[in-house]
């Protein structure tokens, strides 16, 4: 029996820095798994490799028993894995609705010939996609912000919008890069409730998170990364209670 997501022996070097040094771990379906570790531990590099934005020098990634090695980001989204970015990377000049629509598949008229020669059909399909996008916005609590340009949204709303966009791709495994960082207490509660709801709806979440309170409250499993390899794995309470890990995480030991 293969694991849901299996990452094995990843090695990646950047100009003399060994970012990943034989990283191996597995993610189980339907769980919320948090990647933690000090800065430079390789968390975002792992995201970049799983989603096809970086190629590792060694190692492989398999999803549902199928290898993802060498696939482009587009193919990996089609396979059912999509990601958010720590710095959001929303299309700030577009509306919230348009941001979600870019993530939605199955759009007629997303190429010039269809747009020019079958405009009426394209518009009909588009109307359906818009109502789908509106549902995703409602799902994350942004129903009334659909027509707003992203730059006019609050930071918390923008974070929610990144989740709506990643949901629109139809992916079942969501890679969230620090979904809770920089949020006020109210926005934090809102996003944690959303993440739990996504889990109940059958999504699997792999997230990078620094906030230990968030990790403790939400994670089923914690992967502790240090200097490019997996140092510890377990339930959040066990990881957080480990004094050796705390020492690495909060400074001191290098």
């Amino acid at each position: 029996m293969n694991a849901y997501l299996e990452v094995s022996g990843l090695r990646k070097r950047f100009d003399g820095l060994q970012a990943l040094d034989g990283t191996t771990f597995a993610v189980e379906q339907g769980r919320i798994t948090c990647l933690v570790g000090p800065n430079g531990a390789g968390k975002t590099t792992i995201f970049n490799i799983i989603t096809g934005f970086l190629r590792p020098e060694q190692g492989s990634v398999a999803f549902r028993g199928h290898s993802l090695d060498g696939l482009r980001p587009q193919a990996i989204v089609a396979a059912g894995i999509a990601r958010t970015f720590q710095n959001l990377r929303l299309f700030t000049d577009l509306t919230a609705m348009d941001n979600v629509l870019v993530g939605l598949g199955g759009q007629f008229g997303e190429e010039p010939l269809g747009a020019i020669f079958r405009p009426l059909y394209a518009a009909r399909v588009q109307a359906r996609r818009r109502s789908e996008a509106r549902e995703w916005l409602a799902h994350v609590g942004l129903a009334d912000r659909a027509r707003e340009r992203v730059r006019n949204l609050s930071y918390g709303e923008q974070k929610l919008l990144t989740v709506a966009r990643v949901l629109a791709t139809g992916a079942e495994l969501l890679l969230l890069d620090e979904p809770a960082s920089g949020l006020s207490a109210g926005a934090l509660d809102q996003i944690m409730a959303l993440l739990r709801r996504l889990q109940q709806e059958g999504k699997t979440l792999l997230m990078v998170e620094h906030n230990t309170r968030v990790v403790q409250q939400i994670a089923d499993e914690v992967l502790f990364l240090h200097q490019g390899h997996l140092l510890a794995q377990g339930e959040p309470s066990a990881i957080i209670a480990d004094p050796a890990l705390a020492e690495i995480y909060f400074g001191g030991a290098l």
Partner: protein
Amino acid sequence: MDFLYSYLILAEIYVLLGLSTNLLVGIVGIFSVSQAAVFGVGAYIVADFLLSGALPFLPALAIAALCCILLNVLVTLPSLRVAGDYFVVTSFGIQLLATAAFTNWTGGTGGANGLPGIPPPVILGITLADTSQYLEMTTIAAVAGCLCFWLIMRAPFGRLLRAIREDELAVAAAGKGVLRAKVQAAALAGAFGGIAGGLYATFMSFVDPSSFDLDASILLLTMIVVCGARTLAGSVVGPFLLLALPQALSLVAIPTSVAAATRQLVYGLLLIAFALFRPQGLLGEKL
């Protein structure tokens, strides 16, 4: 009357070029300074076919459009590998290369002397000999071009292109093909440029490299920047406004010897003034 018609015809041809440039520079964010080269290739292809009598006007125009689609895709491809500002340098090189080819390949282009005596177009047995007939044709072409642009911008394709301009990586992460969309946009811009070239060659009945040089590319960019990047209105108003400038200057009593220099001077000042004080142009959005 002919004076006014000529102005309108040229402005409408430049509307097609404006749409082509706006699509690449304004919408997708591929900062091309070589759109005049594509324009020129379209013009020379149609001129050569008509001068040799090998093909009638419409098939020649279709072939010019196809060649310019291929050419524009090829010259835009570096933008997929070369990031942002560096593409301007690449594109600049392509423009210089094209000017060199137009000037020196005497067999195909007549070299610096150009190709005179290009016959008027014949469409469905009607020879478009006078300017009012010609104006009808360019009006149809310009309106069709604007319609295409408008349809694209309101379709998902337009949204995808705008998203690519803002953040290619995020578009890829959303599962969409960036390469394919850029190639499609470049192809469309190439078709507009090639058709504009064919119309220009037959209307002027004479082509030479000076119409397709770096100055011409920069004039196109000026039209877009001054009158509005990213919008249909900007692509239409730009050519009409900036091509009226030489006419307006000709009303002022300045010697012809300095008229051309004065025109360049005004274009340059306009460009600087708009970049500083109104970056969104008259009717557009900020680049």
